[in-house]
């Protein structure tokens, strides 16, 4: 494979001025001096992005991921280092950037397409396709300032993806328009992937990353923490974000301190042995095998549960003292017990982690290692079975005459137990 984008030791310094003199008058008055604090938005970032790869950049706000994208796009000039991009490039940093409100949609397609590097003829060839994609056939000759925000964004996306770039840079803009348009956008991105184009996505939405990317780079404070396959990358990112432990970039980019390692993880529930699924309200026990090279007093065990859309349902408090376990040399088994799981239908995955209390190192984190299924026998729907009381009283009476109507206590559920039970 050849690298589509080679990023070599890119650093970017911003100057934060306490007071900025933007006119000659001010400069003369202040003798030309402008004190500033240097701020490194990017520090020695190096990565090769392969041709045809969908590459994700994850990080918290202000970690430098957008700055990096702007450098690749050529909007910002890096302070040092070099970026080589093979083939044509289109950046979707903001949809509809450069639209002129006073021009018609038609004129804006030509202007925007030109800004993205297309010639007049190329745009003319794709014009109908762009208009159809944006679903704006009836409004294309109206001034863009009369467009709704949805129409505006749709047009911007339609132009950007129809530029047919070899390399597409996307900055958290895929979430536009209504559900139907979103699916269309995703389909289009999928097609670009199939066609072997290189796509770089910047986001902090882990589920998009997991679904679309082949590799993920995690950034923090302008530096690369890790570059890995999405599962591992997201683990590092979440470990950092959720405070499970701040991951520090080690020598080889790995998480340091592998004194403890998590082995097999099992989930058992109230119905284990008899049925595959558990009922809402039943108990759940997760056991994790821990191997320890040395004894670790006061390790913190954490657990997280995601639904099948990779949305986080629950993550345990990383500083909760009940999660502290003393692991002797050789290891043992950590047991997490949920007396009651009030979840409704769905397949849920369990992630288990262990970190040290004394410093912030993560020993190990197994991302979504095991699954359990919840089957809801009642006709209630949603995600969580909230405890519910419904009562009824007559209007005239103040306190008396309460009629208990329905209670969703386990007693009701008991009637639904397996016939064999």
């Amino acid at each position, binding site marked *: 494979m050849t690298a589509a984008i080679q990023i070599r030791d890119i650093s970017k310094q911003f100057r934060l001025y306490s007071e900025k003199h*933007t006119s000659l008058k001010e400069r003369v008055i202040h003798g030309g001096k402008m004190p500033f604090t240097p701020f490194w938005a990017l520090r020695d970032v190096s990565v090769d992005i392969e041709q045809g790869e969908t590459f994700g950049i994850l990080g918290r706000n202000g970690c430098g991921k957008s700055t990096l994208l702007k450098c690749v796009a050529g909007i910002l000039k890096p302070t040092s280092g070099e970026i080589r991009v093979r083939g044509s490039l289109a*950046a979707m940093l903001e949809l509809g950037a450069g639209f002129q409100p006073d021009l018609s949609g038609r004129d804006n397609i030509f202007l925007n397409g030109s*800004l993205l590097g297309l010639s007049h003829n190329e745009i003319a060839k794709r014009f109908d396709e762009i208009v159809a994609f944006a679903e704006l056939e009836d409004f294309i000759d109206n001034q863009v300032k009369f467009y709704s925000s949805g129409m505006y964004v749709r047009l911007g996306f339609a132009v950007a993806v129809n530029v047919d770039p070899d390399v597409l840079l996307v900055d958290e803009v895929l979430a536009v328009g209504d559900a139907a348009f979103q699916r269309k956008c995703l389909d289009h991105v999928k097609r670009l992937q199939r066609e072997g184009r290189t796509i770089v996505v910047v986001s902090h939405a882990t589920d998009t990353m997991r679904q679309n990317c082949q590799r993920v780079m995690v950034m923090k404070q302008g530096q690369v923490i890790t570059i890995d396959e999405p599962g591992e990358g997201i683990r590092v990112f979440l470990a950092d974000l959720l405070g499970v432990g701040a991951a520090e970039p080690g020598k080889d980019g790995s998480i340091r301190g592998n004194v403890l390692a998590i082995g097999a993880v099992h989930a058992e529930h109230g119905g284990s042995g008899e049925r595959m699924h558990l009922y809402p309200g039943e108990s759940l026990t997760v056991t994790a095998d821990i191997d320890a090279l040395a004894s670790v007093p006061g390790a913190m065990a954490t657990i997280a549960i995601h639904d099948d859309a990779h949305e986080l349902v629950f993550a345990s408090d990383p500083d909760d003292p009940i999660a502290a376990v003393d692991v002797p040399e050789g290891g043992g088994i950590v047991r997490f017990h949920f007396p009651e799981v009030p979840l409704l239908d769905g397949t849920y995955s369990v992630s288990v982690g262990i970190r040290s209390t004394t410093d912030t190192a993560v020993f190990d984190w197994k991302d979504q290692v095991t699954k359990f299924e919840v089957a809801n026998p009642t006709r209630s729907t949603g995600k969580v079975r909230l405890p519910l009381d419904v009562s009824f009283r007559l209007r005239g009476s103040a306190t008396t005459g309460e009629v208990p109507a329905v209670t969703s206590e386990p007693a009701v559920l008991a009637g639904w137990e397996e016939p064999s039970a």
Partner: protein
Amino acid sequence: MSLGVEEPASAEPDRPTAIGGSTRFVPGQSHDRITVVNGKVQLGQRLVDLWRNRDLLVLLTRTELKIKYKQSVLGYAWSMLNPALVLGIYYVIFKVISKTTQPHFAIWLFCGLIAWNLFNASAMSSTTVVVGKAGIIKKVAFPRELLALSTVAVALVLFVIQLVVLVVFLLAFQLAPDWPALSLLPLAVLALIVFSGAVAVFLSAVTVYLRDTQHLAEVFLMAWFWGTPIVYSFGMIEPHLARWHLTWIYLANPIAPIAMSFQRAIYGQTSYTDAAGVHTLLPSWGLGGYALMLSAILIVSIVLFLGALVVFGRLEGNFAEEL
């Protein structure tokens, strides 16, 4: 910013091939172009990028015109209001109040003003163009010099309209231009465009860092206007200049010989006679002399233009942060 250095890419047997679709991803050709983003972009590369994006220049210019003049005849007529007023004011002052005896003084004025307007309009709007288009600059990468050049192109369109009006004036007054001297005009216009381009590129970049450039430029351009023989004639002040040996310094202002070429070609007369005697308007150089002057200005302007591109390139790197 740098849509930078292009390199011949090595042959690649392992490129992915297109799947489906008609207009999709054809390996080879421009897809093997390598773009380098770093601190430095060579001047030659800048020129190549500008040439590659000439379609964009046309579009930016058209956009500007559309927004300003709404693509209507009345809109363009409106754009003539300002030059017409300027012309009217100077005409009234010199013809009615100071009672100049120069024949067809309006045509004389118009010849110089038309050249000046091109320069003035592009210089003035170049001080606002980069700051005004901050939205695009922060989000899209393209050769930003095009923004400055589009101000020259817009001014050029207005120049052509004014030229048409001038021809109408000539027909109305039944005046003929100096036909042989008209051959100077293309060279004069070219030199004027290149010089205006140099100034526009320079000013547009400097304004980002020194926002009051706009106001300074306004004052400076006013002084410049009066240092150029437009309202008065070069013949009128030449004796004074010669006394102090300032003639060549005066002519170092590129707009001066350009304006004089316009006057020589369109107004035609180099002197006129009234009761007080003979008044010289223009120096008695042959057409070759004018052509030589204009060629020198063109060469200097090209050098200035390249210099302005270099300055622009140095300042441009931080546009996205400064705006």
